[in-house]
């Protein structure tokens, strides 16, 4: 049985991760104003500091935090186009991430990837991905390599509810089960695929039900309740470390639009308002207050604000990649022959 002090300490760790993700994305969103011109939005007079598409996980932070608190540094992770939270929760450097979103040479990808390809291989974060479900096969292969090399590390494979309707979901889950691979599949079900409610496009009972049909141990969990995600991951991860894939189906909600400049106006306003009321960060703050930890939570908020300000300042001051860098890291064979 967890003590109150133990629960408070763990909740504060989880809250710190969630608060960092929220603040990072809020800051990135503010810096992206005037960026991509779609969804009927007017361009602003000022060029955006963060130029590319920015897929925000606002409202989904509990999933990243609750899963990744269980991961070791040498565990691997594959992510989605909505990957800032997974990257931060896996331990990536926030300043390097902010530099990357700003397209600077000091970014974690040297300015070559931006938000949609954010990655920090140094902490086992093998990349956000611009293609839905693309991380699933990569995760299975990485897990197969770990197994072949005799490592006991695991791979956490995040994907969205839209991904379960792509072929690689079936191929990858079958593959992981057939070879007995250490993959924790995490379906981050925010209930909407771009602008289309997933339920209207999905037969059956979703990710966990499909995984069970393949004999994969699965849990459905309230993805907005970070303690529930934490507990479910705690149940599944020992299986995964033992070489049995498992799937966590975390039901959450995307408070923002599909991409940063998308106001998400195609959704029912009441539904969005209810989601705001049920904000997972608010939920944790209330829990912490009830545990007498309100001040500690505020200290975290203050610290995070300072960290964000430093990251933004560093990103704005950082140099652009030199034009010659466009020709680096394409390939080694025949390098120099670009036409």
């Amino acid at each position, binding site marked *: 049985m967890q003590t109150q002090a133990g629960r408070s300490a763990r909740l504060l760790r989880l809250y710190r991760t969630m608060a960092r993700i929220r603040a990072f994305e809020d800051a990135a969103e503010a810096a992206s104003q005037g960026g991509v011109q779609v969804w009927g939005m007017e361009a602003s007079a000022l060029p955006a500091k963060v130029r590319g598409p920015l897929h925000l996980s606002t409202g989904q932070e509990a999933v990243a935090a609750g899963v990744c608190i269980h991961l070791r540094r040498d565990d691997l992770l594959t992510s989605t186009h909505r990957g800032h939270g997974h990257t931060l929760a896996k331990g990536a450097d926030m300043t390097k991430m902010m530099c990357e979103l700003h397209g600077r040479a000091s970014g974690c990808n040297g300015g070559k990837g931006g938000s949609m390809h954010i990655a920090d*291989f140094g902490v086992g974060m093998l990349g956000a991905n611009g293609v839905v479900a693309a991380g699933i096969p990569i995760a299975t292969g990485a*897990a197969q*390599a770990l197994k072949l090399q005799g490592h006991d590390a695991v791979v956490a494979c995040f994907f969205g509810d839209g991904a379960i309707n792509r072929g690689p979901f079936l191929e990858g889950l079958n593959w992981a089960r057939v070879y007995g691979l250490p993959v924790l599949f995490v379906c981050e079900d925010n209930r909407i695929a771009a602008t289309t409610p997933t339920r209207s496009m999905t037969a059956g009972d979703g990710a966990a039900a499909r995984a069970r049909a393949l004999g994969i141990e699965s849990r459905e969990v309230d993805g907005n309740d970070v303690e529930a995600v934490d507990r479910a991951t705690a149940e599944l991860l020992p299986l995964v470390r033992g070489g049995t894939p498992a799937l966590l189906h975390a039901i959450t909600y995307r408070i923002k639009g599909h991409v940063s400049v998308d106001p998400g106006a195609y959704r029912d306003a009441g539904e969005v308002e209810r989601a705001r009321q049920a904000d997972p960060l608010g939920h944790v703050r209330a829990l912490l207050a009830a545990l007498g930890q309100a001040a500690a939570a505020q200290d975290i908020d203050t610290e995070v604000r300072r960290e964000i300000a430093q990251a933004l300042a560093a990103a704005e001051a950082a140099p652009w990649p030199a034009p010659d860098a466009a020709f680096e*890291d394409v390939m080694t*064979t025949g390098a120099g022959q670009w036409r």
Partner: protein
Amino acid sequence: MALTRTTYALAAGEALAAAMRVDARVVALGEDLGCGGVFGQYRTRGADGALRPLQQEFGAARVIDTPISEANIMGAAVGMALAGLKPVVEMRVIDFALCGMDELVNQAAKNRYMFGGQGRVPLVARMPIGLWAASAAQHSQSLEAWFAHIPGLVVACPATPQDNHGLLTAALACGDPVVYLEHKELWGLEGDVDAALPVPLGKARIARAGGDLTLVTWSRTLHESLAAAATLAGEGIDAEVIDLRTLWPWDRDAVFASCAKTKRLLVAHEAVQAAGFGAEIAASVAEALGIAVGRLGAPRIPVGYAPTLEAEARVDAPKIAAAARTLLRR
């Protein structure tokens, strides 16, 4: 120099086995590898003369039989490479590889660049091309130009047993994702192989020296080109035949030097002529040297089943010789 008489298929099997013996990171994955591959290209010949599947020597964990899941085969290879292995991917025929295009084009080819050089994807994707055994529209394509178009990919097209040994060895060593295109009608071709002879990527081979025109080709069309050159020689036309061997990078120096000498270029390939890689070579030579150039590829039709239909898609020696005569009259 120890020469072994062997086939195009076995030459690759021996090259892969040699790499697997010295480097534990090399693995192979694909459908039906356990039995040695459907074309027998995952086998070696033992000292007793018997052919054995590679899985017998290296085990099922390194020579991996997979489900029919081309997307996951290719994607898993990307993940394996990122986690420290050197996977050889078997796609059976290039037509099936189209089920793994995101994994090859968006993931393998882009990974190093878009993640700012954090990782490498040293994989070799064996995707056999070409006409073979009346296999019709979905088992006969030559799609090398698709991959030459993609930054990040090496494209190799071996035409001989020696090159299928040497180029596969080079592909496994190069550290880049390699699209490795063997021709299905060449599996049984016999030749002498020197296992120690390096065949670098990006170096063409002058298969026949000549002074009247330059005939650039690759893969199975090399052999048709050599036959055409023999015909032309009987007519007093001396063709220089260049086996390009790799399409990316491609050996401009060798092609340009030959063209500067002969002042005539014909590129011949089995792939559809329109937007084929022959167009790239012809344009490059025309830009650099301003000489007469010609191309010969298949018409823009799917490959038909009946021999009369399939023949229309085949770029053979008589057609190459005819194209060469036309070029020389210009």
